[in-house]
């Protein structure tokens, strides 16, 4: 199995340097080759499984509760203007 590592990096918002990329690629290929054994398993009529036993979705009522305060947010990050988070420009990347 060949992996287009750079494409995967882009999707994951990661950028490895060239040295790291070589060993990473090898690790990933080893691991993904290990997965090959799954091909032996017949799964055509099997439903995928994601959720556990006895778990019934419970919905919440539409009630407004207290949000975090700006003081809480300021402990996370410096805020700008009336309380905005700030990022490097989005457009024109």
């Amino acid at each position: 199995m060949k992996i287009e590592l750079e494409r995967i990096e882009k999707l994951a918002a990661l950028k490895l340097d060239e040295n790291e990329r070589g060993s990473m690629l090898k690790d990933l290929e080893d691991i993904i080759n290990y997965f090959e054994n799954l091909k032996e398993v017949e799964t055509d009529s099997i439903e995928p499984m994601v959720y556990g036993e006895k778990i019934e979705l419970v919905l919440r009522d539409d009630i407004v509760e207290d949000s975090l305060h700006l003081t809480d947010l300021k402990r996370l990050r410096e805020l700008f203007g009336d309380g905005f988070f700030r990022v490097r420009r989005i457009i024109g990347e």
Partner: protein
Amino acid sequence: MDITALSVSQIVSKIKTKELKAKDVVLTYLTNIDRLDSEIKAYLNVFHDYALKRAEEIDNNPNKKGLLLGVPVAVKDNISVKDFELTAGSKILKGYIAPFDATVIEKIKEEGAIIIGKTNLDEFAMGSSTENSAFFKTKNPVNTEYVPGGSSGGSAAAVKANETLIALGSDTGGSVRQPASFCGVVGLKPTYGRVSRYGLVAFGSSLDVIGPIGKSVEDVAITLSVISGFDLRDSTTAKVPVLNFETYLTGDIKGKKVGLIKEIQNFKIQPEVEEAFRKSLEIFEKNGAEIVEISMPHLKYALSVYYIVAPSEASANLARYDGVRYGFEGNADNLRDFYEDTRTKGFGSEVKRRILIGTFALSEGYYDQYYLKASKVRRIIFEEFKRAFEICDVILTPTSPTTAFRFGEKATPLEMYLSDVFTIPVNLAYLPAISVPFGVDSKGLPIGIQMIGKWFKEEELLNTAYVLQEEAKHV
């Protein structure tokens, strides 16, 4: 009085009768931390002042209530404790002060527990040795040349070194049981849905469970009673009644059927571990249980399934660490580069490896072949357990194929992954399981036996574990 020799129920009752002060309990453990932790390095953050203050509050409060009153609890640093730093063992979260309590933290606080500090872990709980912590390596208190296991290595080591009475860990593929096994303590992975994940830093959301680590099955049972229960904030918790688990530890397992997986012989197991495992089977027989052979031909695929499902979920769970709202910030003059710089510098290599595997397994053209396929095989493994539990009450395996290994011994990621080969299927099937120490190998390193119970039948599982614990005292 040797305070560290007291169990949870002894501490609680002595504090209630004022025979013992919570402050003395906390001081005892804090002193041990001060004395030992520069070597063991189980803690990322010790709550000295907070713990003493809480102890004083308990001592000054005439109303002495709570199942964990005055009991020091160490918390794996991927569980959110309000107003304290939460790192998940990662540089990317360095400096993040949690603005809320995890549900388990609310629950233990309500029962009078004293949180004594946050313990080290593999970054984002990804690892089996705690070597992947971004901060430092935790040593195995049994022999400091060996790893404590992981990812809850700090929690297991803290319990073993008497740096806390109990600890909370999280278990996605064995992260409570394997370090418990390596350090010679008891570690429980509850049924998925038994304990709220609200406030647990997500790794593999369909696999993650918070579980207690303690010196005894009794301590673990009490802690489980406290942290269990349906939680409206976690839509994957189950509305199953919470029992007072400690009262089920009768030691009576007559007529119980203990499952022995036939295919276990196909796995490479350290001979001393294998021997201990055989011996444990004999002990159950001696106590009136019946050994039944079960077949689980798909168990050998569990590792592949796990290393697709967990990284896939992780790749999304860890996307929130983008440097925008909290935690580590990279440096770049445009957004895309900022993301990449933040994440590439903020995450360690094992985390990046798993994010990349997961991203790949979900990506266009590969989803069916990897993520979907794995989710289907997961059901097959689940069904195999279901059939097995039609003929047995508990399934026995070694917790890990080997005892603790040396630092740096596992050269490749795959080698490391194989140390979780017996614990992983349990998470895939949402089952409860416990690791109980049972003897040591020739180097004196602890061996752990894993017992796997039926869904939401922790009381039976704990009772089985209790039998082994009591017998182990005579081995």
